[in-house]
């Protein structure tokens, strides 16, 4: 069983970067950016942090192609798991009755 030779300094370096990024993402949230911008920044930081953990801590760097194909197939299906229900929900938004209690009075006509 070949194992990755450990590089302690690298792990501690990645650790520092992860801690820093956590602080950054919290500070960014205090600036109350408009919602879409806030989402993009938050997502970018989180993806970068996840990438760090995956490549160094999970040793994905030197990993064989099969592991990447397993992850590739999974993410191919994850995209559809996200995309289609969300697209559907946004397309039927005009049908959803929002009034928390009463039925909305003047039913607009579906287009």
């Amino acid at each position, binding site marked *: 069983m070949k194992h990755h030779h450990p590089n302690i300094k690298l792990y501690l370096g990645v650790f520092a970067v992860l801690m820093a990024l956590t602080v950054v993402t919290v500070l960014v949230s205090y600036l109350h950016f408009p919602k879409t911008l806030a989402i993009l920044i938050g997502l970018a930081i989180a993806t970068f942090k996840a990438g760090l953990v995956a490549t160094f801590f999970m040793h994905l760097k030197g990993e064989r192609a*099969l592991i990447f194909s397993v992850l590739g*197939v*999974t993410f191919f*299906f994850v995209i*559809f*798991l996200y995309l*289609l*229900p969300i*697209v*559907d*929900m946004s*397309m*039927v938004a005009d*049908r*959803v*009755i929002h*009034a*928390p*209690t*009463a*039925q909305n009075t003047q039913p607009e006509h579906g287009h």
Partner: protein
Amino acid sequence: MADKKHSDHHQEQHWVWKYVFSVDHKVIGLQYLITSFLFLLFGFGLLMLLRWQLAYPGQPVPLFGRFLPEALAPGGVLMPHFYNALGAMHGTIMVFLGMVPLGVGGYGNYILPLQIGAPDMAFPRLNMMSYWVYVVGGILMLSSFFIPGGAAQSGWTSYPPLADISPGQTMWLVAMIFVITSSLLGSINFIVTTLNMRAQGMTLSKMPIFVWGQLVTAVLLLLAFPPLEAAAVLQVMDRVFGTSFYLPTGLVIFGQTLDVSGGGHPLLWQHLFWFLAHPEVYVLILPAIGIVAEIIANNTRKPLFGYKEIVASMLFLGVMSFLVWAHHMYLAGMSSKLSNFFLVTTLIISVPSVAILTCLILSLRGASIRYSVPMLFALAFLPLFGIGGLTGLPLGLTTTDIYLHDTYYVIGHFHYVVVTGSLIALMGGVYYWFPKWFGRRMDDFWGKVHFWGTVITMNGIFFPMFIQGLAGVQRRLYDPTAQAHNLPTQPLNVVSSVFAWLLFLAQIPFIWNFFYSMFKGKKSEENPWKATTLEWACPSPPPHGNFETPPKVYRGPYEYSVPGAKTDWTPQHVET
């Protein structure tokens, strides 16, 4: 040799560890097989009760009516909520506790390691655990009949808000989470075994079609089940902790406003459920296609027609099965523009199924067909699965689905695919691999009696459903005579019900033949069918560790009638 010492160690284990909590894939395979057949029988029993109410609504059930509890069937007459519970549990038990464990757990566990020349599964203990988690899930599912509120009553699809407010669904969800976990662990085991533990020389293009079918099935199970598990967790939160993931605001149940926070969305469940359920139906059919391919190759004494086409179609089927789920939701309130996307993907997915069926039928050309009992089942699979596939066309098309959705046409369609398709192939598999499991042959005469009895009665049950569907008879109706447009086709309900009871009679020779031949059947030599695949290269029943020396593979799986060969079958592991 290490292998020798290793199988001696197995002998002196206490019989509990050898037969009950065994880690040997063959024992686990047989445990899965017999448990799932028992569940199939139980689910079929529920159906026979239900069919009585459809054929003679409101009349007390003869013979068994007395045993039914008063709350569910006063005086033997089924109550509507008990009828709904019978329907929901029939669907759930047959699909999740019967067919999938039989096709994947039973056949996959036993035959796959043998066909790739592996000593056992990659993770034997995990394999045993997935069986026992499945059994616990099955017991929980059955126990839901006896808890207050009774069993689940909102269909095997468990659509909220009905599933959130009607009694009996919580135990169904908990049992489902157990069954899903069992399938998940099983699929990891299958993929790792198929990829990592193949015999020397067994490249992917030399694997039998049965192994390909199990591999694609395992990937579908692995990636499609977790979304349903998450959806089931959300529904448990709705039912137990009063959240409202699937409950919109402003619900009024029998005049009482439901005091939940609201804000949920019923379509959310449908999306997540069908995201699983469509790959699930391919999980039901792929093992059956694998078995039919094995039996046809063996009994036509020639290689399969278009091995590469079938494998490519299976892989394409696997990928596409994740993109078609919402053709179940054309009329569910989903946006009608999005239906066009799913219409096109549903068209695309019909192509590989047609290709597989074409290749299997063309395998008969230039063959020397032996009409053995397994071959009868495999041959019957082809036209009947064809009917199932064809009747999917009007349902997959958006416009005609407007009329045919949620009618008996749908029930006819999926029963033709699952029952006269998958179940017939799995029964054929019993006759084909019985000598491998027990070293004895099943009786041929009673096999043919069982075959003709089953095929005729199955068609008798399901064909009238198409006529009822065209007449617009809705599905899941407790009393079909309550609505005018269902009355003319009511005699067809009687026809289907009578054939359903006859189908049960047709199974008695099968059950008798199976258990009788297990001990007193005609002794059979190691390779009775003269097959070329690896599972016949070891003694039957194979010892622990399967092969004396790990086999080497020299050629493709179906090298029959090789010109110039001494016999008309050249096994994969023989050098020459």
